[in-house]
Every structure is written in C-alpha cells, then in structure tokens.
C-alpha cells in the first residue's frame, strides 16, 4: 500500500470517509440497542398497550436521555447514508448541492420536532 500522508494527501470531495464510516456504524449499533430497549419494555407489558404504558416507556429520565441520543445518532446516520446516495447517483454539482441542502433541512426539521415532543413528556 502506498503511503500518502500529510502534504501529499489526495484531495477528495468529503475527506477520506473513515470518520463517516465509523460514525455510521457506531450510530447504527446505538439504534439497535435502543430498539431492543423499547421492544423489551413493550413485550414485558401485560395486556393491551394503553397510552399511559406507551408514554411511560419514554418518560423515565434514562429513556429520555437514551432517546435523545438516538435522535441525534439517527440524524448523523441518515446524513451519511443519504449523502452517499446523492454522491453515487447525482453527478451535476448544482443539483447535488441542492439535494444535500434539502437533506439537511429535512433532517434538522424532523430532529427539532422529535426533540420538542420528547421534551414535553
């Protein structure tokens, strides 16, 4: 493997990608753990899942903290993934920029809304 560090780094569009690659995996694992945490509590509920039981899952301080982290993780995960899709299939730079900006606005809007809902609980 050729060594290519420091001032000889090859200029690429979005850094070398290790950071994003790793972030996507770490956030993915966190979301799997969150899924198991919610699923476990739903399955342990006896009888029908009423509003109290469902909202109760998210109202404990621990679950609130975990859910908050998962929302942030989701946003990072989706940003990396959707940006990959645009970089693979959309070649015109202008259109790609528009789509990337749309992705960010779409994601941040949903993130703000979700955090607002969580904070009201």
């Amino acid at each position, binding site marked *: 493997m050729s060594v290519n560090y420091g001032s*000889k780094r090859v200029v*690429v569009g979005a850094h070398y990608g290790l950071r994003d690659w790793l972030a996507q*995996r770490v956030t993915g694992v966190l979301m799997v753990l969150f899924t198991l945490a919610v699923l476990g509590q739903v399955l342990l509920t006896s009888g029908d899942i009423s509003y109290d039981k469902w909202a109760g899952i998210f109202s404990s301080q621990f679950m609130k903290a975990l859910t908050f982290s998962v929302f942030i993780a989701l946003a990072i995960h*989706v940003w990396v993934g959707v940006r990959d899709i645009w970089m693979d299939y959309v070649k015109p730079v202008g259109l790609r920029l528009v789509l990337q900006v749309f992705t960010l606005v779409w*994601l941040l*809007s949903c993130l703000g809304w979700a955090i607002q809902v969580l904070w009201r609980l």
Partner: protein
Amino acid sequence: MTQLAKKRPEFRNINALTDLPSYRLPAAGIVSILHRISGLIMFLLLPLIVWMFDTSVSSEISFAKFSAAFNVGLGFVPAVLVKVVVLGLIWAYLHHLIAGVRHVYMDVCHAVTKEFGKSSAIATLVLSLGLTAALGAKLFGLY
C-alpha cells in the same frame, strides 16, 4: 501542491432502464440495493414517523387520534392505506436493521468470504420478509 487523483476510466454505456432490469444480481447484491432503498424510504417518510411518535406519546387525546388513523383513517386517507404505508416502514426498518447488523458483523469479524456473503444475505432476506409477514398479519388483524 497536493497531487491530483489519477483519471479513472468512466463507463457511461449502462442504461438504467434498459440494462439494469436484465442484470442478475446475487443475493448479496439484492440485500445491498434494498438496504439503500429501505434507507431512502425511511428518510423520505421521516415526518410521518415523527408525527406518529408525536401523536402516540403526547396525550390521551392525541393517542386516540393515532389509533384512529389505523381504524378509521386519517383525514382523506383511508385506514387501509395508512396500514400499507406503515407496513412498508416496518419492512424497511427490519431489512435495514438486519442488513446493518450483517454489515457490522462482517466489519468486526472480517467475515468476507463469498460463501458467508451469500448465506448471510439469504438469511437477511428470509428473516426480514418473515418478520414483516408476521407483523403485517398482526397489523391487519389476522390474529
């Protein structure tokens, strides 16, 4: 000056509409493209997902509205269409999760043989479709 990347060959003779449908993808290829498609579906339906989270946890009244979406429909959208879209989300989530776990497992364990790629891809498809069928039957009240 940083050195420029070498010019790579480009192949622009593949037509997405006339060539791609005749390509025979291996199981791992099918899992891969479905991973991407399921991710994009969930990204585009994110506002619906947050809406479901909002209405289901905010209050008793909103919870009733959430349930009603599946029983009597949501505005002009009939309940059955809500269920079909949610079933699509369930499939997307399951496929994306299982294919993602497969990815992480391959990264961590260096499991990169051709055989493992094929068998784990088939397992991914069977598991995700099986679980989707089971949850879909529940969603549509078959049991």
